[in-house]
Each structure stands twice: as C-alpha cells, then as structure tokens.
C-alpha cells in the first residue's frame, strides 16, 4: 500500500471522528442511548463528587444526617460510615469520586458495559443505605417532590432494566423488557410509581404548608430565574397541601398503571410521567440544587425521565 493511500485512509478516519458531519456511527438503539444517558448521569455524579466541599468534614456530617429518623438497625451503620468518612474525607471521597467516574466511563465504553453496570448496582445499593438512608422511606418524611425513593436506587433499577441481554422469544414491547421480560419490568414500574403516590399522601407531605415549604426551601442560593420559579410554584400551593398532594398522587397512580394500558394510552401515561419528572426536577429539586453548589447528584428527575423512556413502546 502506498504512503498516499495510508495517509488518505488515516485522514478519512480523523475527519469522521473529529470533524465531518457524515460520520458512519456504530448502531445506537434506544436501549444503548439510554445506557449512555445513565453513563452521563454517573459522570455528572463523579464530577460533583470532586467538588471542593466534598473533601471536608461537611460531607461526613451530611452522611450522618441520613441516620435521623431511621430504625436503629439502619441508622447505626450510617453513623459508623459517616464517622469513617469524616476522619478520612480526602482518601475516601477520592475513591468514591473515581469509582463513579470509572462507572460512568465504563458504561459508555462498549466492551466494559456489563462490568460497569454490575458495579453500578452494587455501588448504588451501598450508597442508598449508607449515603441516602434508604431514601428516607422508613422515616415517614420521603416525598416524591424532593427525591424519594432516593435517586441512587433509580441508578440500580436502570442498570437492571438496561442490562445488555435479550430474552429469547417474541420481540420485547419496550427496551426495559429486553433483559428481564415485560411482566417483571411492568411490575417494577408499578411498584416504583405507586410507592411515589403513597409517599405523596404521607401525613408529613399532605399538611397544608408542607409542599409550599419543601419547594420554597429550594430557592435558597439558586440563580434569580430558578429561585423565582421556585417561589412562584411555592405560592401556588401555599395552604393547599392536601389538594396538591391528592392531585399529585392521582397523577402518579395513573402513570403507574399506564404501562398496562393499550399502546396510545401507555404513551400518554409515559408523556405524563416525563412531564411530572421535569416539574419535580425543576421546581421540587431545583435541578438537583447543583446551581446552589454542594449537590452530590442531579437528584431523581433525570433518572425518572430515563426510566419513562425505557418503557417507550418500540413494537406495534
């Protein structure tokens, strides 16, 4: 082969990888696209974990606060872990952040996707207990508006649903059914969204000012536009905690049942799920409070959106 041909071939490669619009991409189906979305969330998690305040005592205190209200058997290991992190903040936080970085990059790298997804499940379960106090679901204070049942458990759920394996038999009706089958995937969806509906109706969340206070508290430290949005939304539900909680719970229950409905109704329910997730993320979670500094993850909103897309019907 002449040098000209070699150079020409390599130039073509460089053009396709870096600069030309007509790149011939390896096939990316919806499940792979969702895996990449999950990888992006892990990458964002890792980058947030490298923030300056995570290397100080505040991180350990933040973890310790997750034990409050939890049963002793859950709370004691959280307290032990928080003390350990507070004493070795630099070392442990570096390990945590780097592990999350490797998980994110691993999911994005095709040969490593299985290992990275498996690691993400193990890591997410650990963080759900030691870092999020099981999403506070046992404390009576969990709310779908501020991240219940814990953002990190949604990472694990997505890793299971997006596992790169296909069951034999008829084509799966939606990407989440490809690895574990449609009945199991639908059951997981039902349990998740019904639990969110249940949390919305907890006494602490349906009190007249509960929703108002939860949303208004997110405005602190946010840019003007987001703080204004939070304050406006909070004033909208002021003194209407019960009715707002009922409306939210009904919407969440409809979303939960949606995946059992015929295709058009299922799609409508999924669109409603995405819309609710967007509202929760922007208004209830203030984009994970990332813009206020000190966020550890983007919270549950983006993951609920990815989850809804994983149930989008792909076969007629």
């Amino acid at each position, binding site marked *: 082969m002449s040098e000209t041909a070699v150079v020409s071939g*390599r130039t073509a490669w460089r053009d396709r990888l*870096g600069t030309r619009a*007509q790149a011939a991409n390896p096939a990316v189906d919806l499940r792979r696209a969702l895996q990449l979305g999950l990888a992006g969330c892990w990458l964002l998690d890792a980058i947030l974990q490298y923030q300056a305040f995570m290397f100080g005592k505040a991180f350990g205190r933040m973890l310790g606060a997750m034990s409050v209200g939890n049963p002793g058997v859950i709370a004691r290991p959280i307290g032990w872990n928080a003390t350990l992190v507070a004493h070795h903040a630099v070392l442990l936080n*570096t390990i945590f952040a780097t592990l999350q970085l490797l998980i994110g990059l691993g999911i994005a790298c095709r040969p490593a996707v299985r290992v990275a997804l498996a690691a993400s499940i193990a890591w997410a379960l650990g963080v759900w207990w030691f870092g999020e106090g099981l999403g506070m679901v046992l404390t009576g204070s969990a709310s779908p508006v501020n991240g219940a049942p814990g953002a990190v458990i949604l990472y694990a759920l997505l890793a299971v649903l997006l596992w790169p394996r296909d069951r034999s038999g008829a084509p799966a009706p939606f990407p989440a059914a490809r690895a574990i089958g449609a009945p199991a995937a639908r059951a997981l969806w039902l349990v998740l969204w019904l639990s969110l509906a249940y949390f919305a109706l907890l006494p602490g969340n349906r009190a007249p000012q509960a929703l108002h206070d939860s949303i208004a508290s997110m405005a602190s430290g946010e840019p003007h536009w987001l703080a204004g949005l939070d304050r406006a939304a909070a004033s909208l539900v002021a003194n209407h905690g019960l009715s707002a909680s009922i409306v939210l719970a009904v919407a969440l229950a409809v979303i939960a049942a949606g995946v059992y409905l015929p295709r058009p109704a299922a799609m409508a329910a999924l669109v409603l799920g995405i819309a609710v997730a967007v509202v929760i993320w922007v208004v209830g979670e203030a984009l994970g409070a*990332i*813009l206020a500094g000190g966020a550890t993850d983007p919270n549950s909103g983006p993951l609920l959106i990815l989850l809804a897309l994983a149930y989008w019907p792909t076969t007629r």
Partner: protein
Amino acid sequence: MTPAWILDVFAAVMLAVAAVSAAQLVAAWPRRYGPVSTDTDIAHLLMAIAMAGMLVPSLTTLPDRAWEIVFGLLTAWFAGRVLRAGGGCAPHLVHSAAMLYMFLALPAPAADGMRTLRYPTLAFAFGLALAGYCVWDLDQLSGRRHAFGGVLSPGVTVSCRIAMGVTMALMLFRMI
C-alpha cells in the same frame, strides 16, 4: 478545599494531552493532513495548556485576557465550520465556547483562593453538554475499535477530547 494533588493529577493529564496534540501536529506536518484535523489538534493543544494553568496557577502561561482572545477566535472558527459543514464540529465548538465562557465569567480570586463563575446556569449547561459528548465519544470510539481494531491516531485524538471534556466539566462544576 479540593486537595492540591488531585488538581495536580488533572493538570498532568492536561499536559499529557498538550504533548500528544503537539506530537500529532509535528507528525502530521510533512504529510499535509490539511486544516480539517490541524485545527482540532491546535485547539486541543491550546485548551490543554490553558486548563493546566487554571488548575495549577504555577503552570499559567498567558494572562486571562490573551486566552479570551484565543478562545474567542477558536469559537468563531469552529462556529464557521459548523455552519459550513454541519454538526460534526459541534464538540469542538462547545469545547472552545466553554473555555471562552470560563475565562470571561471568572472573577478575580477571593481571599480564600476560591473563584466562582458568573452566570452559573451557563456553566451547568456547558457541563451537561461536555458530559454528554464524553459518553458519546467513548461509545463511538469503543464501537469502532470493535469493528475495525487498531486505528491509533483517531483514537488518541478522541481520547484527548474525552479527557479534556471530563476535566473541563469538572472545572466548571467546581466553580459554580
């Protein structure tokens, strides 16, 4: 505070990216790859040097004003490329624009050395875009290796872009 040695590690990665980009430019010179890949390597070289200086002040090479001009020109160049050739150059445009934003939005250091970017919503948007391009690049790179095997040069270029994207996103979120 983020331990200095962690910032040193990221700065070292950026210096490695700068060295690789410089080596690619030198290697490409007699073969006349043309402006299509040369501008990418030049952009990577400049971004990596600038980021190393932002991470470790002792590695600062040019004043902020000079970098604003450099990245303003690069942003305009890649914007032109995107308009002419489509979205293939979009990652370079986003990288250049993110660097320009960082230098424009960076105030003087506070007493404790911390610097907080103005217009943090833009930092958030750039951070998300950079993270998105990183996972996309890695997916495409690993897919190509599966299909074709050992094409070192494009792989190195994209690996440099991934390393820069992660580092740039990290810097943006650190300064929100």
